């Protein structure tokens, strides 16, 4: 008798809480060091991206309207789910070339980073808000609000930690996003989508595509319903094109080309702040004739 034939996983993309194949039908083979094909990965298209933007825009209102406390619990739930599937991520990371120790460290750090941002969900507002002492008789205060739909081109060198580092501050701040995963190390991205899908995170808040930045960066940056873009790679030509295209609808662009993912500096409330807008509200204070603090 032959030994049991293993069931291989089909790696698909993640849009609006569903796992479709790319509408383009294209794929690229992912090979291990020996040259064996490990998986066929979706080569996402412009149309996939546009569908993902529609999903992200649809999810934005609900997600940004959640209480910070609720977002905090959901990010913590993502960490829990990731912790529970640690072994699967470690084996995928090893398949993609890491040593067992490095793989273990990367998953642990990813879980901890999610917990870190889970804690910030209901706290950064207090750090970045202000009550402004205007000279007229008005009550005036400023608070951060999420920018909207954020496109993310995640780090190329990391399969899981880069993805988590890029996504967590964006959704902790109430934005929705479309992420392009590492092209050469895409396995964990798709598996991470399964984690998200079982974490009470509403569909559409995070959408994950696999494919090539060379092909997609101009579409990510020119889409008129994307409010901001964060870029974690170092290609100077892509950076220039992204910044140029951003002017079409005054997108906010953040280039994180010097981030050391394993460092504590790769996580910060200021990374949440980057994808926030400051809103200032005024209201008159009644001035009653001769009323003074008389007691």
């Amino acid at each position, binding site marked *: 008798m032959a030994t049991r034939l293993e069931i291989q996983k089909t790696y698909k993309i993640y849009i609006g809480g569903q796992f479709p194949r790319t509408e383009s039908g294209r794929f690229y083979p992912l090979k291990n060091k020996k040259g064996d094909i490990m998986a066929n990965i979706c080569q996402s298209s412009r149309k996939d991206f546009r569908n993902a933007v529609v999903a992200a825009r649809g999810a934005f209102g609900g997600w940004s309207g959640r209480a910070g406390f609720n977002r905090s619990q959901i990010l913590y739930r993502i960490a829990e789910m990731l912790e529970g599937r640690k072994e699967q991520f470690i084996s995928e990371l090893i398949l993609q070339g890491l040593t067992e120790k490095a793989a273990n460290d990367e998953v642990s750090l990813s879980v901890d980073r999610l917990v870190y941002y889970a804690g910030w969900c209901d706290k950064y507002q207090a750090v970045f808000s202000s009550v402004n002492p205007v000279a007229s008789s008005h009550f005036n205060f400023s608070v951060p609000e999420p920018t909207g739909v954020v496109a993310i081109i995640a780090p190329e060198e990391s399969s899981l930690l880069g993805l988590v580092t890029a996504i967590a501050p964006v959704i902790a701040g109430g934005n929705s996003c479309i992420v392009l995963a590492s092209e050469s190390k895409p396995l964990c991205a798709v598996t991470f989508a399964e984690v998200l899908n079982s974490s009470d995170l509403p569909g559409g808040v995070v959408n994950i595509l696999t494919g090539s930045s060379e092909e997609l960066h101009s579409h990510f940056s020119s889409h008129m319903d994307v409010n901001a873009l964060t870029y974690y790679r170092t290609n100077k030509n892509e950076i220039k094109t992204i910044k140029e295209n951003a002017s079409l609808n005054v997108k906010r662009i953040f280039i994180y080309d010097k981030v050391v993912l394993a460092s504590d500096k790769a996580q910060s409330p200021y990374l949440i702040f980057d994808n926030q807008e400051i809103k*200032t509200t005024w209201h008159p204070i009644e001035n009653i004739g001769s009323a003074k603090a008389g007691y």
Partner: protein
Amino acid sequence: MSKKQENKIGLDFKTDWAYAPAPEDTKHITLQKQYDLFIDGKFVKPNSKKYFDTINPATEQKIAEVAEADEKDVDKAVKAARKAFEKWSKISAKERGKYIYRIARLMQERAREFAVIETMNGGKCIRESRDIDVPLAANHFFYNAGWADKLEYAFPNRNPQPLGVAGQIIPWNFPLLMAAWKIAPALAAGNTVVLKPAETTSLTALKLAELFRDSGLPDGVVNIITGAGKTGAAMVNHPDINKIAFTGSTDVGKMIQKSIAGTDKKLTLELGGKAANIIFEDAPIDQAVEGVINGIFFNQGHVCCAGSRLFIQESVADIVIRKLKDRMESLIVGDPMDKNTDIGAINSKEQLLKIQEYIKIGKNEGADFYQSSCAIPSKGYYCRPTLFLNASQSHRIVQEEIFGPVLTIQTFRTIEEVIEKANNIAYGLSAGIWTDKGSKIFNISSKMRAGVVWANTYNKFDPASPFGGYKESGFGREGGLHGLMPYLKF
């Protein structure tokens, strides 16, 4: 049988009594016939050898000639700012603050002169330049001065450092105020500045340059160069500028964002707007009408955050519109130098033509046109306060920024409807809400995709209050603690 009750009483403004002229005295100001560029602490002739006329839009008369800076002049100014940066960023923060305090005081002392020149050159009524523009400009210096030696408390554990040379390009609607609210935080943060005022309104910036010179501010810390779009482009493209701060139209803002794409220059954009001003049926109607008037007719409507789209809940639309028309009828349009004037001159002929073009577009689109019946002077650029009733969301006059005294009016029934309509636009600078219900204010204000929300008030500004937009109205904040961030690196 019951006839619909009409307003028979009405308000009759056709009486004989009129305000006597109350012109502001203009004899106390000093103006030269010709202004050079202010570079490295001195007024110097432009390399271009060219000068252009600056006029009074209320009379169409020439006031003075102003130098046109070319690329070499821009380079000279940037070099002066770079040289000055070495020292300015190293003097103690406390001393830096004291220079800025001194500027604030000098401006307060010369407030009346600044106000008169602002009105002469820009057309805004003296009541506004005297009571709003100039005091606020001085306050921006006074407020930011105090930040100079306290930045580490604003951004704890972040070691805030200045960026270097800031290139600042400002518009013609609040010439002195914009200069102040850009220069003051830049200096407090330890940067040096090259500033270009708009070509139609250079004079108060040049008077400000005189004030810097007299204040003992080290040479080159602030350089003021004049010119039009070409001069601005030379600044934007100069390789040794670290930061561009621009206030102006969304179109130009986009061009700037695009042209610095290949560089590491930092950018703040404060661009156009098309604010929704929303009146609910439970609003204090008289105050709301006053707020709408202030929202759209303040500074002739040349305000990026003007409340140019009025949304009235259907049940109170008739009474609001009637009161609005009555109030419009009492607005005095005319000589900006007269202390009784409510609406002064349109800033330039070009802008007047643009407003007139939009009025034509609005009529063609089918909205109902209404203007007050006031007389306007035969000479100079003027536009009567204008309404478009029954405008629809798709009209160009609803979607595009007119930057003049033109208000579009739409009605709504439900909260959901008005939120959708208010946000369904590319801009997101400001919004207004009128209701007596606090919970409704917080609901609507949190749903407006706009950087400044005025509830039961409108068009209020303060140096302690951050200002700036969402979406295509730009990014970065000016004013308050948040306004320091764009001038610092961490």
